[in-house]
C-alpha cells in the first residue's frame, strides 16, 4: 500500500503505545519496542490521529527553520510508510 497523502491523519496503530524504558521514550508494539529519538520522536509525537501530514510537515518545517518542506514531506512519508508496514502506525 501507498505512502500517506497530504491529508492523511497518522496515529499509532491499535495496541501500540508510548512508554519509558531506561529513562528514554520508546514505543511498545506486539513484537518488541522501538527507541525513538530526535526527528523520529518529533514526527511520531505529532501523530495524534488529528493532525494531517501537511500540518505535521508545516510544524516540523517551522521547528527546524527548514527551507525545503518538500524534502521534509518525503522524509516524513517514507518514515511513516515504513512504520505502517510494521503495523505500528495507521493512516
Amino acid at each position, binding site marked *: *500500500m501507498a505512502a500517506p497523502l497530504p491529508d492523511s491523519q497518522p496515529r499509532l496503530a*491499535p*495496541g501500540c503505545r508510548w*512508554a519509558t524504558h531506561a529513562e528514554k521514550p520508546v514505543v511498545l*508494539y*506486539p513484537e518488541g519496542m522501538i527507541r525513538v529519538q530526535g526527528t523520529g520522536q518529533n514526527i511520531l509525537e505529532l501523530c495524534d490521529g488529528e493532525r494531517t501530514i501537511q500540518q505535521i510537515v508545516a510544524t516540523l518545517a517551522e521547528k527546524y527553520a527548514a527551507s525545503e518542506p518538500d524534502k521534509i514531506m518525503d522524509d516524513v512519508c517514507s518514515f511513516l510508510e515504513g512504520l505502517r*508496514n510494521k*503495523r505500528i502506525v495507521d493512516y
Partner: protein
Amino acid sequence: MTPNPLALIAEITHRCPLHCVYCSNPVQMVAKQAELATEEWVRVLQEVSRLGVLHVHLTGGEPAARADLEELIAGARKAGLYTNLITSGLGISETRLPKLVDAGLDHIQLSFQDSRDGPAQWIAGAKGHTYKIVLAEIIRQLPLAFTVNLVVHRQNLDHIEEMIEFIEQLQPERIEIAHTQYYGWALRNREYLVPTPEQLDRCTRAAEDAQTRLAGKTRIDYVVPDYYARYPKACMGGWGRRTLLIDPSGRALPCHAAGVIPDIQFDSVREHSLEHIWQESAAFKMFRGHDWMPEPCKSCDRKEQDFGGCRCQAFLVTGDATATDPVCSLSPDHHLIEIARAAAAAAEQPAWSYRTSVE
C-alpha cells in the same frame, strides 16, 4: 553479569478445552491445584518488570481457563508491562473481552486450526471454530492489537491459500503462519504433521504473495520450519539470553520444552527471586556461552548467530541435550531428521494422540 531478560512467557495454566494434535505443551502437565495463586503471579510480574522485562505473554494451556485472568492483566499493566494474550478464544465471552481490555490488555493473539469447520474440529479434537470467528469480529471493534495465529502442517497445507484468505477477512494487523514445532504432543504426532517438500514450497510462495499483497494492511510473519532449513534457529534468542518462561507451578525455565531435559533442576519462583534465578541458577547458566558446545559448533562461525540451536530438540531427537541441534545440516545426527521426514512422507491415515485434559 548476563544482560537481563526482555520477555516473560507466563504459562499460567495447562488447563485447556481443546486437544490440539500439534500442542507443544509438555506431556506431563501441571494440575490446577499446583498452579501459582493470583498474588504469586502479581508479585512475579512486578519482579520481572524491575529486572527490565517489557513484554509478558500470557499463555497456557488456555489462559482464559483461569478465573483471575482480569486480575493478572491488571497486575501486568500496573507493573508497566506490555501484555499479550495467546488464546484459542474459548473461555473469553463477549462480555469478558472488554473487561480484559479495560484491565490493560494490549494485544491478543487468536489461534485458528483451519479455515473450515470440520478440519478445524478434527485437529483441535473439539468444537470452537465458529465461536472464534464471532470473537474475531468483537476483537476488531476494541482498541487492541490483533494477531491471528495459524499453525500449519501436512494435514492442512494443501489449502494454504484458502486459509490465508479466510484470515484476511478477519482483518488482523498481523497473521502469523507458524509451522508446527515438534515438542510435547506434536512430537508424538510428528509423522502425520511434517510437511512434504512440495507443500513447504507452496506455503512459502503463498506467504510471500500475501506479504506483497497485504503490505501496509496486514503483516505476515512466516519462518521456514527448521526440519527443512540448513541451519537451526537461535531458539528463544539463545538459552537464558532474552526470555524466561514460568510454568503453571512456578518453575522458571529458559523455554517451553526445557522440562524434558533430565537432570536439570529448575528453580521455583516460590523459593527464589527472579534475579537469582536468572543470574545464578545452574539451569539458566547451563547452556550460556560456548563452553558446553561440542564440535562442529565449537569451531563454527555461526555459533554467535544460532547458539548451536535448540537444546530440547537435541535431547528429544538424539538423547543428548549437549549435542549440536540435529536439524543443522552440519550435525553428525542430521540423518535422524532425514529419517523423520521420510517417515512422514510414507505415513498414511493419521492415528493421532490428542492432547489430554488436565484438571
